[in-house]
């Protein structure tokens, strides 16, 4: 019974933090007004970079798409950190008495919601712009969800690492992008299968994405507390 109550408290606290972040985002319209246009711009620029070569673009769609999502993750994680950096909000988060793991889950969930919103736009956008076609909707959707959970967990944790540091905008990409290599590889392969460009075992790649997500959520839950206290 007490475990059930603890879980409810945890979920409630995480929900509070996520709702707070999303409310701030909604009011500031950052995702809508800046991150989404940025994602679309990257898609268009990839078109220029590959000389608008339709067969090449179609073949490269999964990779280009996930490169775009990776860039957006860096931007979203930086935004998420910036919310806590102002006005000593991190201290308040620490003093609120909620479990640091719950705060982490809330922060990561808010980033995940924003990433999913961006993906809901850039996946159809890439399909339209690059002339690709979705062959397996469940595979594409599952890859999106699994990759997003992993990216938002790693992004939120590493974002907290550089929180309050002057050079955080330049350091976060160096930290996040190498660690995200498995997501880029696995999500690209899963999408290649889902979009029918290459026949590979898409679902096993989704499994790898889920493994990445599980590991990074666990590390975040453990390491977020010390970061809140020290950094």
């Amino acid at each position: 019974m007490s475990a059930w109550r603890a879980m409810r408290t945890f979920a409630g606290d995480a929900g509070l933090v996520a709702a707070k972040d999303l409310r701030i985002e909604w009011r500031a319209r950052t995702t809508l007004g800046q991150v989404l246009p940025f994602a679309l711009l990257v898609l268009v620029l990839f078109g220029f970079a590959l000389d608008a070569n339709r067969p090449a673009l179609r073949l490269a769609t999964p990779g280009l798409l996930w490169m775009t999502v990776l860039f957006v993750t860096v931007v979203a994680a930086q935004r998420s950190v910036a919310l806590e950096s102002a006005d000593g909000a991190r201290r308040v988060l620490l003093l609120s008495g909620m479990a640091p793991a719950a705060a982490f889950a809330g922060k990561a969930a808010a980033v995940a919601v924003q990433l999913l919103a961006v993906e809901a736009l850039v996946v159809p956008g890439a399909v339209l712009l690059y002339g690709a076609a979705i062959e397996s909707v469940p595979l594409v959707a599952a890859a999106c969800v699994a990759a997003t959970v992993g990216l938002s967990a790693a992004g939120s944790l590493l974002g907290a690492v550089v929180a309050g540091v002057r050079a955080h905008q330049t350091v976060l990409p160096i930290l996040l992008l190498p660690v995200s290599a498995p997501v880029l590889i696995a999500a690209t392969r899963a999408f290649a299968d889902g979009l029918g460009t290459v026949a590979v075992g898409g679902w096993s790649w989704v499994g790898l994405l889920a493994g990445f997500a599980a590991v990074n959520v666990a590390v975040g839950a453990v390491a977020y507390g010390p970061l809140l206290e020290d950094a």
Partner: protein
Amino acid sequence: MTPPAQTVEPSGSPVVSYLDSPARAGSRFTRWLGSATLAGIAAVAALGLLTVPADDVQGDAVRIIFVHVPSALGAYTAFGLTAAGSVMWLWRRSAWWDTTAHAGAEVGVLLCGLTLVTGMLWGRPTWGAYWEWGDVRLVTTLILFLVMVGYLSVRALGGDPAAVATRAAVVGLVGGVNIPIVNRSVNWWANRTLHQQSSLTEGKLEDLTLFTLFLALVVAALAIWWMMVHRFRIGWLERQLQARDLETALAARRAEAGR
């Protein structure tokens, strides 16, 4: 009015009294260790370049093994220390382990860079290309190198020592748990490996080549030991110095208030 710097400087007490031992990075032991390392490097260079015969298949390129394999094993060991140190800092708040983690990362990045460069130099005559995306170990090692460069950049951010230690420890932890996933993903992705299976375990090496390789491993262990001891002591001294700066500043404020 006397300047605070003079009022707070503990008169006559030498700087060393503020520092826990060691007072400097070198000692008689490390000088012996360094000399033995230098002699060993000379011996490996002489054996590897002059005495060991060229390989039937790889030709003279096989000589790179005497630098490549020891530096790769050394890099993995040093990064292992960084991962262990990161966990120990988060778990026990051990300054000793934190300093070890930092030293391991610096030594490891150096050796990892050497591994990559020697691997690429070996790949050109053997595979016909400097870089081969199909090679799992090569790609994973590059990602590991980049993760650890990120670790060092976090270390370089500066600030409160405890905050820096915690930030770096989390990066070390995240890197440590994700590297196996990177390896797995690159493995599936490439679906094949070009990398030499261990020449050691397959018994493909000539006796003298094998002896030189073992000697190179021993010498590399000595070199890494020497580098780790020095880097650790420098890190420890830096810590002490920072603490001393804070002490001095506090004493200065107290002295001002007392007046």
